[in-house]
């Protein structure tokens, strides 16, 4: 059951923060000190940050995001911060440059305060394949914050920062955002430059935004969206021909038919949004997506194949940890990778190498690429009939850490709702709808390519009815 009291309380706090002039917040030694102490204490139990540095009070910045403290997932380059990717292999590696998205945030006056925890190289659903830390959920410390951007989601949900960058290859922004009760946007593929994002699966990777409110998500996304000569797949979505998302009365909404195997709270969240939209005059229709049956299989075939190629660069010569001695160059590479990479990464590299091998290519990778084309076409067809698709984010709410939770295999199967958007290159946004038996739940909005701002506008409308919740101990450090 939803708990309106908690939601209302949280909304009041966050509305205050939204309206804050960030140039006048955290601009004295005292407030910065209080902020740093609060983050230190909270991070001790959550392990959301791998690295945190309090902002300089004398340098609030200039621009539309002046003074805004931002956290960045630790597979995105920030100059002079470490860039570990949650891997022992890169534990001491420090970035010599800024990712384009980070440079744009700094240019807009934002202050990067730290790097957040993640599954190793973004490969996981619970931030527990990291070899450096396992982030816990601010709503229940025995549960996962989700993954792979679990550190970013937990940092925002716990009030340590109002906004964070994450990366989303198969749901890695949306699933942790939903598990933690905050907003998470996976943009249209190419809408945000990938320069400075450590590649996992290049045709699926996106830099996304995790935020406490849809307003803040919009303000940050507006700054980082755009084409970039350093990323040839980048595109300015503002120049794309996209049908304007209409008001609620003229809105046509596809609602994914519920899967009764999903957690009842997950099904309830979709029904809640459907009922509200109907009450406002929107035209809703139940839709089936047959591609969901094999979307995760297609995703893991393609993602692991690309991962195998992308992670070949970690050979012990140019980056990170390596043995002191090797008999020959080949042994140097094998020892570096075998001792530096974790189990989940090795598994995916093995899978990706296998599906690309001569004799197996057509059976796996070739077939997956053709099915990806079909998924892309099915989504294009869908968005000729509806303006937006409402669906679950994940079949469960935040699951327990450890052996009581989902197995790695179950987690991969459960990625079916999120991977479709990555395979089709379309935008998708996870938003909270309430608190269900003590844990946040929500839905996913998916739109046509270039329809990112339309999704954000709808999320803003829905935030008025389903205010973003806040967990226990949400701090008022900025008040």
């Amino acid at each position: 059951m939803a708990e309106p009291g908690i939601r209302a309380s949280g909304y009041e706090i966050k509305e205050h923060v939204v309206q804050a002039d960030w140039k006048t917040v955290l601009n004295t030694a005292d407030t910065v000190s209080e902020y740093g102490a609060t983050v230190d204490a909270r991070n001790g139990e959550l392990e959301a940050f791998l690295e945190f540095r309090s902002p300089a009070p004398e340098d609030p910045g200039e621009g539309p995001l002046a003074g805004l403290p931002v956290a960045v997932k630790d597979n995105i380059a920030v100059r002079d911060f470490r860039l570990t990717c949650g891997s022992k292999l890169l534990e001491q590696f420090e970035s010599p440059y800024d990712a384009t998205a980070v440079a744009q945030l700094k240019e807009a006056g934002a202050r990067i305060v730290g790097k957040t925890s993640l599954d190793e190289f973004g490969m996981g659903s619970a931030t527990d394949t990291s070899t450096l830390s396992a982030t816990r959920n601010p709503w229940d410390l025995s549960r996962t914050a989700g993954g792979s951007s679990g550190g970013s989601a937990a940092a925002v949900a716990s009030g340590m920062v109002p906004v964070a960058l994450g990366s989303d290859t198969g749901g890695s922004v949306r699933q942790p955002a939903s598990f933690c009760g905050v907003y998470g946007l996976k943009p249209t593929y190419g809408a945000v430059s990938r320069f400075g994002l450590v590649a996992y699966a290049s045709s699926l990777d996106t830099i996304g935004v995790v935020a406490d409110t849809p307003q803040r998500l919009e303000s940050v996304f507006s700054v980082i969206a755009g084409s970039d000569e350093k990323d040839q797949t980048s595109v300015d979505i503002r120049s794309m021909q996209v049908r304007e998302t209409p008001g609620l009365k003229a809105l046509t909404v596809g609602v994914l038919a519920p899967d009764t195997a999903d957690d009842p709270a997950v099904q309830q969240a979709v029904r809640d949004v459907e009922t509200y939209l109907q009450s406002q005059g929107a035209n809703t229709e139940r839709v089936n997506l047959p591609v969901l049956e094999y979307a995760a299989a297609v995703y893991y075939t393609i993602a692991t194949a690309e991962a195998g190629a992308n992670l070949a660069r970690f050979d012990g010569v140019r980056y990170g940890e390596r043995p002191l001695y090797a008999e020959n160059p080949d042994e140097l590479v094998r020892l570096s990778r075998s001792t530096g990479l974790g189990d989940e990464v090795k598994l995916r590299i093995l899978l990706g190498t296998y599906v690309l091998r001569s004799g197996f290519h057509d059976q796996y990778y070739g077939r997956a690429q053709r099915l990806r084309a079909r998924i892309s076409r099915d989504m294009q067809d869908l968005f000729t009939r509806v303006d937006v698709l409402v669906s679950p984010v994940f079949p469960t709410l935040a699951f327990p850490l450890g052996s009581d939770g989902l197995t790695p295999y179950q987690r991969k199967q459960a990625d079916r709702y999120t991977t479709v958007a990555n395979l089709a290159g379309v935008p998708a946004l996870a938003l909270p709808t309430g608190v269900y038996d003590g844990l946040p739940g929500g839905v996913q909005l998916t739109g046509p390519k270039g329809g990112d701002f339309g999704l954000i506008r709808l999320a803003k409308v829905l935030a008025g009815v389903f205010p973003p919740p806040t967990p226990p101990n949400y701090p008022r450090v900025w008040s």
Partner: protein
Amino acid sequence: MGDTELSITAALAKLDLSDEEQTRFADEVKRMLQYFDLMADADIDSGAEADVPVRPVTALRDDVLSRFCDADALIDRGPEIEDRYIVIPNVL
């Protein structure tokens, strides 16, 4: 995937697997490949004409030389540096 196939794949991926890892990964890889078999029954012809990911226009930049913003900082991040060369362990 049998032990031999796994060993060949690991060698191609430049990974050394211990006996324990060999056993564990064999099970996990086998399970995932069985999952991938879901794709075997799906219709792969009806979407062949669809464009896959993204861009509306080709985006090839001019083929001109440009210097990385801070090449020295990039080189300095190498594990061991000597006169702008990256030193690797003795491998002979």
